[in-house]
């Protein structure tokens, strides 16, 4: 029994234990104020489901040896185009959601493949290059959003008749499709069943893939490329596979995010999407060279809950509205902490 406990503890890791303890303290403090703990936790669940797929997207790129996918916006933008196509045609509910996915996934595959061709030429620098690819793609797409041939008056600027608006609302089309699927209340918590189920489904698919022959091959390529060559594996093909999977997950992640959030923010909206996802997977116990699905799940739960709970609590404790500052400090401090702990696994 004792041994099993030790094993569970070692698998979980000290950092996650500390973060969990901190989270618990925050929730206890929140309970002592006028804040609604149930409300905070409900918000956390929504944010977990909303951001979870971005964090899952980190796993295949890490496993393929490309490192953390800082170029997440590449996939996010593919997802964005999907969402826009569905909105342009005023598709409602699940229809809109599925059309958005059907457009986003092929675009994600193409964009991910092109992106992987670049990454295969900058071996060792993927994370740095990826960061700037992400920034560049976002900037380049700003031009596209202005010239894009969308005609639906709900999407474009009221004057001039061309160019997409900065913020679009999905509440009239397919906003909340997943969140409002079979929701229920328990102990005052509202559970976004559809959102969480969809997330769990994708996590399961990814878990299955990582246990399949190509998944194992991808992992070998990531861990020791020279061994992989000696085992007859095509390194670049598997690296591309990892990047494509990551990009497609990001595209799906955006469609899910947008329907849950209720708004699509174009232009500079996706600029920073990679960073919270990176922080979450690292906090979940992954390293830049090794990640499991369970790391992504633990990571997003801890990171998003912490963010959701920490902000209102600090606002109550410290007079004045510093929520935005607190959010920036907390999230970036966590990224910084996580990046210094790149060893992951047992040591992190």
């Amino acid at each position: 029994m004792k041994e099993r406990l030790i094993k569970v503890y070692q698998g979980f890791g000290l950092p996650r234990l500390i973060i969990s303890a901190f989270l618990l303290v925050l929730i206890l403090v929140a309970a002592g104020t006028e804040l609604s703990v149930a409300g905070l936790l409900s918000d956390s669940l929504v944010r977990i489901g909303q951001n979870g797929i971005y964090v899952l997207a980190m796993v295949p790129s890490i496993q393929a040896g490309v490192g953390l996918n800082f170029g997440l916006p590449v996939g996010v933008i593919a997802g964005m185009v999907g969402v826009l196509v569905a909105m342009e045609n005023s598709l409602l509910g699940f229809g809109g959601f599925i059309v958005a996915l059907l457009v986003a996934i092929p675009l994600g595959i193409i964009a991910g493949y092109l992106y992987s061709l670049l990454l295969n030429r900058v071996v060792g620098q993927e994370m740095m290059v990826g960061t700037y690819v992400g920034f560049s793609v976002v900037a380049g797409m700003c031009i596209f959003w202005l010239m894009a041939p969308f005609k639906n008056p709900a999407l474009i600027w009221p004057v001039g008749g061309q160019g997409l608006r900065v913020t679009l609302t999905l509440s009239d089309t397919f906003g909340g499709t997943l969140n409002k699927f079979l929701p229920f209340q328990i102990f005052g918590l509202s559970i976004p069943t559809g959102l969480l189920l969809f997330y769990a489904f994708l996590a399961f698919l990814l878990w299955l893939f990582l246990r399949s022959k190509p998944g194992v091959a991808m992992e070998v390529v990531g861990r020791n490329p020279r061994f992989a060559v000696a085992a007859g594996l095509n390194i670049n093909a598997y690296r591309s596979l990892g990047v494509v999977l990551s990009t497609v997950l990001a595209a799906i992640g955006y469609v899910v995010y947008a329907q849950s959030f209720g708004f699509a923010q174009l232009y500079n909206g996706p600029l920073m999407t990679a960073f919270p996802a990176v922080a979450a997977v690292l906090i979940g116990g992954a390293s830049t060279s090794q990640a499991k699905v369970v790391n992504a799940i633990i990571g997003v739960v801890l990171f998003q809950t912490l963010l959701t709970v920490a902000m209102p609590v600090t606002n109550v404790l410290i007079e004045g509205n510093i929520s935005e500052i607190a959010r920036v400090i907390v999230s970036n401090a966590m990224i910084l902490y996580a990046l210094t702990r790149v060893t992951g696994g047992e040591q992190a």
Partner: protein
Amino acid sequence: MSVPVLEMKNISKSFYGTQVLKNIDLRVAKGEIHCLVGENGAGKSTLMNILFGMSVITNTGGYDGQILINGEHVAFNSPKAAIEAGIGMVHQEFMLLPGFTVTENIKLNREDTKPNLFSKIFGKKLETLDRKKMSADARTALDKLGMNIEEWVTVEGLPVGYLQFVEIAREIDKEGLQLLVLDEPTAVLTESEAEQFLEVIRRLADTGISILFITHRLDEVMAVADNITILKDGELVRSGPTESFTIAQIAELMVGRRIDTSARIGGERPKAATEKVLEIRDLHVDMPGERLRGIDLDVYKGEILGIGGLAGHGKIALANGIMGLYQSVGQVRYEGTDLPLNSPREALNRGLAFVSEDRRGVGLVLEDTIANNIVLTSMQVQDKFLKPGPLKLKDQKKITQHALESIERFDIRCTGPDQIVRRLSGGNQQKVCIARAFTQNPKLFFVSEPTRGIDVGAKARVLELIVELNRMGATVVITSSELAELRSISDRIAIIYEGKLSGVLAPDAPDLEYGLLMAGKSLEEVGVSEGTAN
């Protein structure tokens, strides 16, 4: 005889209880070229580290014995002290700044300066560089070497051969240089560059600088050395003037048998069949530092073929080339049909398996478990250890079971199949590599340096395993730097010299014949007949 520039007396050194040098004596006179030869691991580098007071020596309890420079006792505790005493060193790897000019590299950290206004106020650190004097000095040093490159060009982009000369120019520019140590300087040079290099060395020696020359190329030794010292296994085998040696003798003394070769592992084997399983024709392999330049060799079905030769001559490249890990050209026929080169997948599909000499780099996924390391190649190449069904999911149960069997069979000392391979000792890591090859059920099995870096007990076990695999029907090609090891298990031994086949010998052939082949002499040429050995 005058007082020697360098005298090392009774030098001994052990690392953590393992004696690596035993009572070595070395004398180098003024203007003498002294060659230090020996196989890898003979103790040459350790001896030079002692001379230079490197921290690897001082941090591990120092050494025994005495060093005298010009008859005076010295004990350097840092390379800086050695350099101040007039000892220069040119390393195998270049220590030059690519973006700097030749002059700047030669004068690095010893720049000539002249005072200016600021330096008068703020001190010497702010003095201006005296570029004129620096250039002139650099020119003088280069001229001494007979080098006609311009001193103002940047080092970046110069041919490799020139870099070596720049390094030497830097050393001879230092005032009071008495002894220059050259650590395998010609290893990276082409033949003509090496020739020019030897000429420069001779010229330097004529100016009164003593030279200690470490090399693997024996013809160079004969061409340039005044005296030769041969080390083997940390002991001085023989030392004397060059005239008293022949090239074959040196080779023989370097590699001579260390253990009784009559102790054949696995006893006598049935006579090998005469069916050729692998025919290699004019194979060139571009493996840096171990180039193969056109080799013809046949491997017979069911035999154990040993591949030997001195370091840097290309023996390692044979297996790597056939397995497709390094760029190769030539023709390889396997079981009667052509084996496509440069395709590891093809080689694996045809039933070849390889245990790499680079165990930690190529042979293992260090961060992965023992179980995964054993099954990975078979899973990817032969679709073993997968659950039935279109998803091709890995079958963890089968994997664990196979790993447990392998651990038992190969005597892998570990905590279980889930232990991370990095944590295992070298010997146990090697057993994991061999278990992986076994799992592939290979018909032709290449194994390179199977006992490098592993302890004695594990060595014997690893060799036994290779013989066992052979008994099960696999043809084995084993490459090793340890001749004794090759002789203990091989049926035939091929010796590689300068990227070509020097000859094929029986395991019980005399040491002298091995020495000759390793030195690139053919047996007929020297007229060796049976029984002249030892």
